[in-house]
């Protein structure tokens, strides 16, 4: 399983490095979304800083949809998904590999977007480790749910429009927990302020990771 996961993640990241879709399209889209939020909130830096945590995670969710759609479309061209199935690759390994590749891209995007909220919104991060932990746990949750729902919509002609509809409500806990942890980290709150939300993220990740490992194979066969 781990060998297959590393193989698939390596393949997806190599494709991403060649096509540069995340670098030239997804990241700029995230920054543009942050800039548009800033325009909508007006010139008051205090208001922008206050809304920064939620706006950061909304931008991350939008970028997640794009990254997952890209991950699915890579397997849609030239029957690549059938090709993968025909290799007899371990479905759990395939799931973990694709989720790892999406997660790696999202981590890089979040670094860019964090810089964006600091520069555009004047957000001040008081407890950096909480930001790092929330990004790692939130990214894991987004990557595994995105990969799972991406596989569900993969065989459908309307997958581009269906995926956000399926995925965004499901990842609402990540948005909520991530925003609360960021608020605690920006206001210099104690670690206990964010602990319950970190627990929620851990639980969310564990549930969807387990569901994905078990169900990705059957979904792959029927989607």
């Amino acid at each position, binding site marked *: 399983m781990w060998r*297959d996961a590393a*193989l*698939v993640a390596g*393949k997806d990241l*190599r*494709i991403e490095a*060649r*096509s540069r879709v995340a670098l030239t399209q997804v990241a700029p889209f995230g920054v543009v979304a942050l800039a548009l939020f800033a325009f909508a909130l007006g010139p008051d830096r205090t208001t922008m800083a206050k809304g920064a945590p939620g706006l950061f995670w909304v931008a991350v969710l939008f970028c997640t949809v794009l990254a997952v759609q890209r991950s699915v479309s*890579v397997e849609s*061209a*030239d*029957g*690549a998904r*059938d*090709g*993968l*199935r*025909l*290799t*007899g*690759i*371990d479905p759990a390994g395939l799931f973990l590999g694709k989720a790892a590749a999406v997660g790696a891209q999202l981590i890089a995007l979040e670094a860019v977007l964090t810089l964006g909220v600091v520069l555009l919104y004047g957000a001040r991060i008081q407890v950096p480790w909480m930001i790092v932990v929330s990004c790692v746990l939130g990214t894991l949750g987004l990557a595994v749910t995105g990969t799972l729902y991406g596989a569900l919509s993969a065989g459908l002609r309307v997958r581009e429009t269906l995926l956000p509809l399926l995925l965004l409500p499901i990842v609402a806990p990540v948005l909520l927990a991530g925003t609360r942890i960021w608020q605690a980290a920006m206001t210099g709150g104690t670690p206990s302020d964010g602990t319950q939300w970190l627990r929620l993220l851990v639980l969310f990740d564990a549930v969807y990771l387990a569901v994905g490992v078990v169900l990705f*194979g059957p979904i792959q*066969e029927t989607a």
Partner: protein
Amino acid sequence: MAPVAPSPSAVSLRDAVALSGRFPLLAGVDLEVAVGETVLVEGPNGAGKTSLLRVCAGLVPLASGSLAVLGLDPVRHRTAVRRRVGLLSHASHLYDDLTVRENIRFGVRAAAGDPARIDPACERWGLTGRLARTPAAKLSAGQRRRVALAVLTARWPEVWLLDEPHAGLDIVARGLLDEAVAEASAAGVTILIASHEPGAAEALAHRAVTVTGGRVTAERTLRPSESAAGADGPVADGPDQAGTTDGAGPSVEPDERPTGAVPGGADASGWVAHVA
């Protein structure tokens, strides 16, 4: 004298019905393919040849009937069957952003194949030098086909399912393909070739079956099959172990016979209206 064990079936389909929604892909196929046998599957467009191969590869589940590939159920033993079966389909299964060599390497490693066979396969299909470093997006249709064939021959599975294998290939590549199939056949690989231009594939096959309306409606022997006639040795594990079959059974004269009436009836185009 101890009785000779019958040659095991590489592919065994019994009254196999496969559906796409309510649309019948296979409408009751009965087919036995012995280990080491090469079978040409002929029939008009839309007769069910591609579906038959996809069912054998485990990509399409059966709605009813039974299927065993190398003695295993492709649904229950999905990974084990797929690692021992190779399908050359209309699609090349390539990633446009990866180079030719990267595509072959990924295809072989994902199938737990031997990476040492990648270089000989690339050389066999002329995928060396600058072409090996070319992204798949820049390849012609024929070159993509060669890459797919290179993955197949590098993997060297025990069952080859070739769907219109000559399509899109130039005369040189067709010759290479015929060589590879002959070599695999001599090595004991079981091969199913679906083709609607039988001339190109007839010389390679031991037997031809005609698929019409999702059923096997006729079959004919093209040349005697050593493996099917009683040889029961292990399948050779690669192109370097070819030519191990020597137990030729009694000679079989080429013949042609229908496999019986087609219950349910197929129309002139080969489609059946309903599956019983």
